[in-house]
């Protein structure tokens, strides 16, 4: 059965205030949302907080979902990713202003570090494969790890201008491929 059909059913019941449907939706999707936020935030406590806040928003905003916004799962992923990106920005700005406490808990050795390298192949990967290697890597780093242009530039040891161009051109090519 099409999982989106199932999720749609659960989300529309959630919009009506059905707590059991919401619990079922959580059970079926929390593992995905947690993996995504863990990959970005690298700390279990922060990733749990992002998932928690995402589901609070999903409960309140379930009635706002419409199919123009993508599948139920991609819509839910948007919510958790925006939350995780906000948390990353807050963490980074605090780090820049000299709060060192946040660095300590970052666990660079955590086993989930490069989860995205073991991911399943999905439709979009057919188009990701057609990108130049640099474009694909830069987009994956920004998407899965929430890195800024500057951070991708450091990671790939490539000038900032090149990274910006790779990402911009890569996204344009991705769009053309997905629409073809």
């Amino acid at each position, binding site marked *: 059965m099409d999982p989106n059909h199932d999720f749609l059913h659960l989300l529309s019941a959630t919009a009506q205030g059905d707590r059991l449907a919401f619990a079922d939706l959580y059970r079926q999707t929390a593992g995905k949302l947690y993996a995504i936020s863990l990959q970005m935030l690298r700390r279990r406590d922060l990733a749990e907080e992002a998932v928690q806040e995402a589901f609070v928003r999903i409960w309140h905003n379930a009635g706002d979902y419409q199919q123009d916004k993508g599948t139920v799962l991609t*819509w839910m992923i948007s919510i958790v990713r925006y939350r995780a990106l906000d948390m990353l920005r807050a963490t980074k700005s605090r780090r820049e202003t000299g709060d060192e406490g946040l660095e300590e808990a970052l666990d660079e050795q955590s086993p989930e570090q490069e989860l995205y390298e073991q991911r399943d192949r999905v439709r979009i990967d057919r188009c990701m494969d057609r990108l130049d290697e640099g474009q694909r890597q830069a987009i994956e780093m920004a998407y899965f790890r929430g890195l800024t242009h500057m951070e991708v530039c450091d990671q790939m040891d490539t000038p900032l201008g090149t990274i910006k161009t790779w990402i911009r051109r890569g996204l344009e090519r991705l769009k053309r491929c997905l629409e073809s």
Partner: protein
Amino acid sequence: MNYLTEERQNALSSEYVLGSLHGPARVRFQRLLMQHNSMRHTLWRWESRLNELGTALPNVQPAPEVWERIQARLGFTTVPPVTSTNVLSLPQRKPRGLQWLAGLSAAAAILMAVLLVNLQPVEPLLPGQIAVVQSEKAQALWLIELREDQLLVTATDKFKALDNQDYELWMVAADGRPPISLGLLPKQGKLSLPRSVLFDQVQVAALAVSLEPLGGSPTGQPTTVLYTAELVAM
């Protein structure tokens, strides 16, 4: 008027979803989203495209406490009030100081409960209700009084506001409708907000406070829910 080319809309939307649009460009984009329907649709298409990447990640189950905290935040797990029709029913949530009662025989416990219930002074029912919005550290941030003619909100000195953000108050109805904005909260001191007629028409599950760009929610729905609080009768 739509002054942005389709190409520009796509460039901005895709980098917004990716997270690589930041600083003033990101703020300008958020403003454009409020103004242009076509921009919102372009954004949705990119959310739908790029987030397919995330669907392929292997699942990692979060700790069970996450679900417990979600339920608590949404007010699902609060203990229902004890009905007053049967004085023999023991309160479901024992006051902390009475825990020693558990060591007594059941008969003695029930007798004590009856005495305690009967000793409670009968209070006249006041028309007002209050809610206290607390931080994660259980510090009181706002006191909200629902009066007959207004919502009176007081920010406590524990509340440290961000300069470039506003805090918006929402009513969360029990019937599952989208949250209803009640107005922006004061960053300090007292503020009187209009009392929504919905307080008399729907059952209120909770009040919620969201973090918003200056001026309040751009979408009419909470952007980031920070806290929820329950209204209780005084």
